[in-house]
């Protein structure tokens, strides 16, 4: 499965990373090199094998649905590029 320039543009868009047009060809080659190396996985017989998503054998723990922390808007927004009165300030989203 060759990765071409159009695929790189699409994936970069999905990942929300601006890639300058002059980088696209080089990236396609780089990613192709890596994916070609990864293709060797096709040699492994995985018929009937369950995907391994977690090495932790116990199930996810549950806890009571109660508030454990909160009321710290100033702390939460303390590292924001822009904030006012405990609110995040973001670029205009709706025209």
């Amino acid at each position, binding site marked *: *499965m060759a*990765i071409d320039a159009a*695929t*790189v543009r*699409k*994936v*970069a*868009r*999905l*990942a*929300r*990373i*601006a*890639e300058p047009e002059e980088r696209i060809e080089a*990236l396609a080659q*780089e*990613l192709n*090199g*890596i*994916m070609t*190396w*990864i293709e*060797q*996985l*096709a*040699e*492994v017989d*995985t018929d009937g*094998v*369950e*995907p*391994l*998503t*977690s*090495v*932790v054998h*116990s199930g*996810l*723990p549950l*806890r009571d649905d109660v508030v454990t922390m909160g009321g*710290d808007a100033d*702390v939460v*927004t*303390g*590292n*924001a*590029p*822009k904030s006012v009165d405990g609110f*995040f300030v*973001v*670029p*205009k*989203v709706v025209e």
Partner: protein
Amino acid sequence: MSALTSLTLKGALDGLDAGDFSSVELTKAHIEAVEAARGLNAFLFETPEQALSMAAASDARRSLGAARPLDGVPLGIKDLFCTEGTPTTAASKILEPFVPHYESTVTSQLWRDGAVMLGKLNLDEFAMGSSNETSAYGPVVNPWRRSGSNQALTPGGSSGGSAAAVAADLCLGATATDTGGSIRQPAAFTGTVGIKPTYGRCSRWGTVAFASSLDQAGPIAKTVEDAAILLKSMSGHDPKDSTSLDVPVPDFAAFVGKSVKGLRIGVPKEYRVDGMPAEIEKLWQDGIAWLKDAGCEIVEISLPHTKYALPAYYIVAPAEASSNLARYDGMRYGLRAEGGNLTEVYENTRAAGFGDEVKRRILIGTYVLSAGYYDAYYLKALKVRRRIAEDFDNAWEKVDAILTPTAPSAAFGLGENSNDPIAMYLNDVFTVTTNLAGLPGLSLPAGLDANGLPLGLQIIGKPLDEGTVFSVAGAIEKAAGFKAKADKWW
């Protein structure tokens, strides 16, 4: 005060107990060592004032007879662990400036036990790298050099700052993290001891995420015993991490020095790779001979899917990273770049904030998770991951622990591998399998190559059986008698 910085962590605790010196004296000696070693670029942030105040509090506790397990020992913290009030960058421009309002669980437990923080240690950006060259703040330089050469070598990665700081006697131990080998390969490249415990031993809460099903914290230290002491403090159940294991934490140090007589040690034939230096093969044979002498039974085993571990990892880890790193959107913390609309703000922020290797992995991860490729790549990799875990399950029917080399080479020159991603990825060929299977793996120094550089051996254990790993490592440490240190040039 070089005598104080050349102590082991255990030696320092004994000296503090005996009243030979105070934590303030011990901490001052290390602060001076850190300041004198800036050429190594190991520390991103030094916190000498905080260190001295923590040391004074420790001395006060000790004088009241209330000393805790790590009371007064100065440590370095990989800059992937959130530290309240001290910047945390993951060596990325995208987290600049980020000052956490909370403490990671692992570091909070170290401070609970009395340890002193010297500062934050350099790493590969978001822990993605094997040479420290992806750090946005420049690479750490290995304290070790080839004999007769001034060439700057890599300390390995991603925990290169942790490994270099311990090797250069800048701290008595350091925290590190390991997603594919990031504790063990730098330990091997710097003549230090590093252990990645069983997945779930150490809480991931408050540690910047790379690939959550693989990430695990652990210590880098000067000796096997020191690593065991540190791991005990770092381990334990944490309700804030749903994958944290609710199991008792053994006294790991009690396993160091225990007899290994009768233990069955597996030697996997698939870990002999093309192009591996003869010296590493010889070191492996030395390790086998030492364990035989100590009464172990050596068993040849097969882990047939070993060669597929790295390609599977380079699907699973980037897929998880592309999801984890989606949070860096320029809205709630870190860098924000300008743009004509919201999407452009996201795209420009992430283009400006992430380095090339991080971008490469996010793109791969996004690609293998995208519509039409998910089954062919991501699901396939998860199935191969189970095959790799099954290889180990089969091995545990025959052996109690496994002995391998840690890395396929000694430390290489900065810049030597940075143009070829796959060549760089191959550094983790012997370490990545244990991340995929969730098993504990420890690297310890066992010898020097012809250039005078340290080489490491790795011991892999059963799930939650770090105890046996420490016993075997203790036996090799004793037999190898590795005492070499880097000649001080910095």
